[in-house]
């Protein structure tokens, strides 16, 4: 393998990527000192670009790295990602056009704007905003793991010493460049580069999924070479059925609670375009399903296995590509995977920054100007990127997917305050707040108990909690959400029985 050629193609395409990122600020030009222009691309996106943008939230290192890795190491249960994306867009079809309309009516820029207005509570709004910001961090960290995986195998095959240091330096350089163009181009930079990223990825996935099975003798051969995996090989072990279902439903409900996904929704230009692009998004899931199957395919790929053993299962997909394709194609595909982490990291940091200035700082800084608000957001977006980068340099490596699923436990507890708040008039801040607290405590303590007490792991390795046998394994986030919803229901019932009639003003919110 000519490794210099791999790196040359990678770097050339990276330069093109950066140029596109900077050029994006001129595209459908708007006033970049306005937060709506910077963070929502001026709310001008039509069906196609919205499809690419929201698709970019989905087609991330989660898809290229985390899911194939988990399938390779643990087995069939991690194919839950496929029904998850299938369901999540149904959830979005129901909830998001409504959120878009409510927000357009009242000029909301974030979902927390709606919470603040509906519940008339600064504290609840701040709590939900901070929840969103915290939940995004492990998701960004996952993106960086993915980028690191590509760099490790590419640099590791080129040179033999100082691989770790050079990988870390390259990551930092990539982040500085990303920070610079996110700063100047905002969401426009993310949208334009998302198109480039998805074209490369689609091409790669199709080529690999057609050719590799031919080289290695089909999926039949891969399954035959597969050892019996703990979490299912060809089908699910009965004890993990509920684990699969709860991961599926939990993740499906969680995606559109993430600030970056809602940010994408708000950037579309109409509900009709939003609906159509959402309806087509399961097609992105097909790519995800095929990439997940790389985790199976790797077992039949005798050329790729030594690389996976050497660099670790994080490189399952890059190793398959490296082992079977010519250098130029490897460089092309690696760049796709690399920016597949970079672009979502940018989108997520924009959403976090948006929330922090608008819903945490602004309520306490009444006379902040629109210009300062936008400028602060830009600086915060840089801060969050480097916070996530620092996080992964410091934290104990774990299965990368678990990071995102921990974020899921946290974000799921905001469901009543965002989804239910759009439909239930009589929801009040006390029951939503109590439900949030009960859900977080339940979900996170199950997580800690399962990992550090029962299994005595030194890092988080599983988000599943094992109940006694008829129930089996269950996603801690869903247990938390059920407790949360129960508290909200009881709290709302009590408040309705105490005050059977509420004036229109006090019920507030969506239908005012």
């Amino acid at each position, binding site marked *: 393998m000519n490794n210099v050629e791999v790196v040359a193609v990678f770097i050339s395409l990276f330069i093109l990527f950066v140029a596109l990122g900077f050029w994006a600020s001129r595209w459908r030009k708007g006033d970049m000192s306005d937060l709506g222009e910077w963070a929502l691309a001026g709310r001008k996106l039509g069906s196609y670009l919205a499809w690419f943008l929201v698709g970019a939230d989905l087609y991330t290192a989660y898809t290229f790295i985390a899911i194939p890795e988990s399938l390779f190491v643990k087995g069939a249960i991690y194919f839950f990602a496929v029904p998850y994306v299938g369901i999540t867009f*149904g959830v979005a079809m129901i909830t998001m056009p409504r959120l878009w309309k409510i927000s357009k009516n009242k000029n909301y820029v974030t979902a927390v704007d709606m919470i603040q207005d509906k519940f008339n509570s600064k504290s609840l709004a701040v709590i939900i905003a901070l929840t969103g910001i915290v939940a995004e961090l492990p998701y960004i960290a996952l993106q960086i793991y993915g980028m690191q995986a590509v760099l490790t195998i590419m640099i590791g095959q080129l040179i033999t010493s100082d691989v770790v240091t050079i990988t870390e330096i390259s990551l930092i350089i990539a982040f500085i460049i990303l920070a610079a163009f996110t700063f100047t181009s905002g969401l426009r930079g993310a949208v334009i580069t998302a198109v480039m990223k998805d074209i490369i990825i689609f091409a790669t996935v199709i080529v690999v999924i057609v050719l590799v099975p031919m080289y290695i003798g089909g999926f039949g051969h*891969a399954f035959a070479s597969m050892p019996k995996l703990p979490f299912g090989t060809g089908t699910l072990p009965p004890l993990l059925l509920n684990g699969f279902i709860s991961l599926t439903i939990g993740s499906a409900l969680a995606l559109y609670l993430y600030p970056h996904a809602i940010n994408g929704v708000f950037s579309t230009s109409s509900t009709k375009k939003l609906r159509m692009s959402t309806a087509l998004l399961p097609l992105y899931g097909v790519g995800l399903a095929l990439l997940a199957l790389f985790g199976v395919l790797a077992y039949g790929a005798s050329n790729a296995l030594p690389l996976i053993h050497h660099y670790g299962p994080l490189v399952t997909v890059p190793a398959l590509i490296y082992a079977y394709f010519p250098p130029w194609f490897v460089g092309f595909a690696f760049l796709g995977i690399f920016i597949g982490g970079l672009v979502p990291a940018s989108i997520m940091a924009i959403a976090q920054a948006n929330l922090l200035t608008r819903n945490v700082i602004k309520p306490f800084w009444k006379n902040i100007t629109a210009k300062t608000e936008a400028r602060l957001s830009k600086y915060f977006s840089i801060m969050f990127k480097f916070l996530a980068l620092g996080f992964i340099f410091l934290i104990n490596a774990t299965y990368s997917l678990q990071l995102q699923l921990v974020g899921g436990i946290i974000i799921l507890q905001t469901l009543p305050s965002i989804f239910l708040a759009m439909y239930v008039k009589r929801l009040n801040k006390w029951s939503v707040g109590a439900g949030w607290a009960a859900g977080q405590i339940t979900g996170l303590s199950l997580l800690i108990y399962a990992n550090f007490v029962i299994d005595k792991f030194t890092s988080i390795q599983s988000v599943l909690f094992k109940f006694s046998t008829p129930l089996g394994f269950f996603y801690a986030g869903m247990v938390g959400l059920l407790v949360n919803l129960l508290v909200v229901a009881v709290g709302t019932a009590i408040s309705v029985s105490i005050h059977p009639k509420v004036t229109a003003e006090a019920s507030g919110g969506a239908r005012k």
Partner: protein
Amino acid sequence: MTTAEVNSNELSLETKGTTGQKVAVALLLLIPMLVFAITPIYDFKGPELFGLTFFYWFETLWLFVSAAFYVGAAMLLNRMEGGNK
């Protein structure tokens, strides 16, 4: 685009349309979701396709079906909403 320029139907939170249309939308949205959520429907080894167990290929195929159902729902909802394209 300012709020005044947006068609008022587009911002209304009430769903317009006949009962038949509403039932059709509900089915188009719920069927794909329920099939995915009820895992015992597809947690089988056979019949296999391209060497994949039913569990893997059915879920992948169902994504295409879901997209078709959702597009149907989106077209119907967009028509019910009326107003500008």
